[in-house]
């Protein structure tokens, strides 16, 4: 018999509409009288805006900052000591701080006509020297992005203390500079906003492609100066987020305001150029890192300065503090050592804001620490996996507090790594490396290991700094009059498959026909207030809330069922969609019909809350769950062309209790493909004037089907002791491990040439330049 509960690879409910092309995205909404919006955006990275001239015939179709009186700028200021907040106007007032910053809003019946109007708007500006690199921006005398700050530092974190004792005694000392490239997040659907006034319900309604319906509601209320209760946010089917849709967009505020002024709905759909250049980028970090170890490869200490090139503004509600905070306290990764000092900072530049992409800072910190582990292995003349094994938490030490107090909840890290070493067939690769490849390529094998703190709760997020901190997550679960189950949640699935996995949780408790369990999300009118879906939290928190509410609902149903069977409520259980007392039972449908349609059959003392329950959840410990994984890659590097091919890729992951292993595999495949993109392909370079050089898909490279190998996924399942069913958050790890594993493999391949590369992406040009550098140095020597 097919099962639909926790642990079953149930086919996804939502795929029926997605695979038939029947999903409903912002672009699918067409309202009567709807008009389209195009924005005039800054053509320069840094300038004083002196004036905007609009041709007379388009006066009524163009809106600038002057028109938006009363609209407040976006200010995302976490309550952190020393945080310098940025004031981000919805439309530029007197300064332009990055290419693509919004200056004017043009409305027309079609987008093409709106763009025609936009082309007639002329900007008068005086260019200023731009700051385009985080290292230059943090140096003395740099031009300032926000003059009133006095420097370009949003916020700085210091974790640990000076580690002098170790620096003097360590047998091995390795230092590296590592840079990850600024790039884009690429959900299949871009952003889009449709705004209109709903005269019947008296809401300003925004249909918007967001991960965070309630945060958009809160942010919009603040910017427009109107009450929450007058704003309704609908986030319908959303074609992927990955963090890109985890913020309040300027466009949402602009169109929200516009809809309040006009008598018709207005819509803006992001185009590819806006997506690539104007809205948000991700991942740009720089690390100066030193590792100290004894002669046996035992890690003694880490010293690091990590910078985040945060762009011009702090996005709401994530804030530009989060990545820098994560660098400082996630850098130690899975390893056990005692001396640690990390200074990290978020640096403002004249580029669009950086926001967290799947994995947030973990992808960068994993690369930084794993490059150090590989370097120590070389010095100690050990296999890289051996060095890692020597520095891991042992299973009997779990739960374990690491050097910065991260509380690893459960697991067997060494076993995970050993399985990856075995699955990638390390011994065979080492044998193969002794022979020359017939095609002249060089083979390398590499590993990465990391912990993925997910489902962080209030305490963690409050310390990282955000204007909106998560607390309890709620779900509403109800039995309908004909015995079906309806679940309303404030989290938002934009690819995660919550319509299926939340239904699995309810099924586990209520046992109602799986086809009759329905999950409703993405509309603030019908769902509990929530910080929504990010940080691999939904299955733990949303799932926990669905479980809690389902149990309460089962209790209510049990009382009614017991009365119908004329037995005591303590003698019944709810199972298989029925209330059961020994041999006899009533179905939940019969219970529902009694409650809704035939209440005269029930006693006066029955709970008047009925079969409609809203309940909340918070994990027993809110310091987060710790999924962990080993990634292992085999690559072939062509030293003549610089081209890298991934020959084999293995992921061994322990994500606690898996609700739907098929969906988990999907998370890992997708994340790994994105991690491969980060490592080998994706980059948004800027020229010295701050112009983005990848503004179309001709210049921006994503991995495709031919670049992503068949990823082999192996699971371990160690439940978390702190969460419902032992579930852990695991949505991001796929994107964390690949750069470190692939860089490790490439450097392994090139080791006979004494070539090491660390800067992403590993383009053919970078590989060849590294080879050239070594060759030309040895020529001179």
């Amino acid at each position, binding site marked *: 018999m097919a099962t639909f509960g926790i642990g079953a690879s149930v086919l996804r409910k939502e795929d029926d509409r997605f695979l038939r092309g029947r999903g409903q995205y912002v672009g699918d909404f067409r309202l009567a009288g709807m008009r389209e919006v195009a924005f005039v955006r800054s053509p320069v990275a840094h300038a004083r805006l002196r004036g905007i001239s609009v041709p007379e015939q388009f006066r009524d179709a163009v809106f600038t900052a002057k028109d938006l009186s009363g609209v407040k700028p976006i200010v995302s200021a976490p309550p952190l000591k020393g945080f310098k907040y940025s004031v981000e106007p919805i439309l530029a007032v007197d300064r332009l701080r990055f290419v693509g910053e919004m200056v004017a809003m043009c409305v027309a019946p079609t987008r093409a006509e709106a763009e025609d109007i936009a*082309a007639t708007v002329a900007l008068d500006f005086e260019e200023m020297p731009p700051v385009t690199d985080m290292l230059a921006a943090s140096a003395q005398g740099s031009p300032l992005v926000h003059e009133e700050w006095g420097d370009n530092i949003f916020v700085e974190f210091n974790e640990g203390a000076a580690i002098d004792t170790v620096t003097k005694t360590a047998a091995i000392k390795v230092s590296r500079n590592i840079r990850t490239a600024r790039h884009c997040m690429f959900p299949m659907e871009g952003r889009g906003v449709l705004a209109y006034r709903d005269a019947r319900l008296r809401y300003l309604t925004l249909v918007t492609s967001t991960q965070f319906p309630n945060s958009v509601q809160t942010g919009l209320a603040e910017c427009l100066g109107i009450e929450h209760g007058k704003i309704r946010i609908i986030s319908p089917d959303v074609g992927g987020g990955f963090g890109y849709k985890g913020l309040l967009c300027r466009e949402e505020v602009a169109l929200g305001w516009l809809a309040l002024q006009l008598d018709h709905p207005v819509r803006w759909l992001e185009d590819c150029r806006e997506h690539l250049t104007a809205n948000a980028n991700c991942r740009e970090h720089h690390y100066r890192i030193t590792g100290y170890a004894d002669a046996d490869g035992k890690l003694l200490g880490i010293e690091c300065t990590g910078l985040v090139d945060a762009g011009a503004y702090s996005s709401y509600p994530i804030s530009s503090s989060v990545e820098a905070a994560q660098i400082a306290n996630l850098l130690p990764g899975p390893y056990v050592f005692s001396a640690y000092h990390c200074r990290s900072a978020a640096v403002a530049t004249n580029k669009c804001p950086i926001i967290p992409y799947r994995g947030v800072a973990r992808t960068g910190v994993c690369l930084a620490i794993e490059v150090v582990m590989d370097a120590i292995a070389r010095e100690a003349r050990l296999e890289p996996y051996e060095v890692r094994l020597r520095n891991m938490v042992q299973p009997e030490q779990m739960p374990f507090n690491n050097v910065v107090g991260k509380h690893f909840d459960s697991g067997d890290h060494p076993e995970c790594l050993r399985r990856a070493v075995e699955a990638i067939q390390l011994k065979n690769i080492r044998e193969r490396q002794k022979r020359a490849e017939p095609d002249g390529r060089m083979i390398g094998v590499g590993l990465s290991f990391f912990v993925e703190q997910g489902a962080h709760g209030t305490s963690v997020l409050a310390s990282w700094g955000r204007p909106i901190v998560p607390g309890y997550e709620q779900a509403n679960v109800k039995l309908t009059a004909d015995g079906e189950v309806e679940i309303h949640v404030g989290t938002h699935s934009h690819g995660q498959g919550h319509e299926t996995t939340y239904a699995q949780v309810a099924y586990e408790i209520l046992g109602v026909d799986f086809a009759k369990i329905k999950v409703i999300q993405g509309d603030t009118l019908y769902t509990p207030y929530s910080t929504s879906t990010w940080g691999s939290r939904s299955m733990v928190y949303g799932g926990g809330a669905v479980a809690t509410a389902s149990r309460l609902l089962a209790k209510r149903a049990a009382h009614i069922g017991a009365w119908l069977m004329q037995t005591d409520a303590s003698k019944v259980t709810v199972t298989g969609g029925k209330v059961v007392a020994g041999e006899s039972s009533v179905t939940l449908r019969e219970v529902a019909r009694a409650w809704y349609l035939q209440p005269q059959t029930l006693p006066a003392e029955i709970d008047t809350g009925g079969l409609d329950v809203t309940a909340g959840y918070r994990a027993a410990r809110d310091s987060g769950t710790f999924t962990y994984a080993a990634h292992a890659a085999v690559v072939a590097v062509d030293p*003549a062309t610089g081209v890298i091919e991934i020959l084999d890729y293995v992921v061994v992951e322990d994500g606690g209790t898996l609700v739907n292993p098929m969906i988990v595999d999907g998370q890992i495949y997708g994340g790994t493909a994105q991690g491969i993109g980060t490592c080998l392909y994706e980059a948004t370079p800027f020229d010295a004037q701050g112009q983005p050089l990848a503004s179309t898909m001709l210049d921006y490279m994503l991995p495709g089907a031919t670049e992503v190998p068949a990823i082999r996924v192996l699971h371990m399942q160690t439940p978390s002791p702190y969460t419902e069913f032992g579930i852990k958050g695991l949505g991001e790890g796929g994107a964390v491990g690949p750069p470190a594993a692939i860089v490790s493999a490439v450097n392994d391949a090139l080791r006979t040439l004494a070539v090491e590369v660390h800067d992403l992406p590993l383009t053919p040009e970078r590989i*060849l330049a590294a080879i050239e550098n070594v060759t030309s140095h040895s020529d001179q020597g």
Partner: protein
Amino acid sequence: MKPAAFDFVRAASIAEATRLLAETRGEARLVAGAQSLGPMLNLRLAQPRILVDITGIPELVRIEDESDAVTIGACVTTANIEDRRLPGRGLDALASVAAHIAYRAVRNRGTIGGSICHADPAADWVSLLCVLGAECIIAGPVGKRRIPAEAFVVGAYENALGAAEMLEAIRVPRLSARGRCGYYKICRKAGEFALAIGAVLIDPDRGHFRAVIGAANGRPVVLADMRELRRGNGKLDETAVTRELDKNGITDRIGRRQKLAALKRAYDQAAA
């Protein structure tokens, strides 16, 4: 990213298309598969007043089978060539190179003529047609003329067409039975424009020993007799190739390495 407004005309004949070009004095652009012009219109880099669709002109989709060559209409799609619609022997290189141009969706619409007219230095058709010694058949108000592919491509995104001229077809000579064509491109990923292209034709029975270095700064570097680049042992002479790179202003260190690697591999295929 929506195009500026334009008028759209579907030309029924070559005469009509060239007449429109002549009458509109540079305000009209011809369009076939729109795989290069389409994005330029959307980015408003091109803003023609009139767009003339030439895909309905029968002569432009013809494929003429001749004993020593094939004449391919300018609007024949890359997918048609990939699918081996070209008749007869000695044309294998066309199909095998076609199969690796961009993606199938692009190949379904993109045309061989459109590609060479667009003259992107990194486009495969540009390098391949040059190495095969193809001829471009040009129609204009005063009749037809023929020029070699390497003369048709004048520079990066520049072709030899006069104001009212259009490319009608491309005549590609067949390889002899012993003839071999080698082709190698270096791309960051499958389907992307090349970083370097090497193409080599060794067809002793026809006396052809040609080599092309593509994805160069401008027009492809065409070496009409590549025997000069060979050493006594039959291997490619790297110093001689480097001299050619110097001569053609390909100075970037990394680019030189890649072009040399691509040419070597193409040569190895052709000489095998």
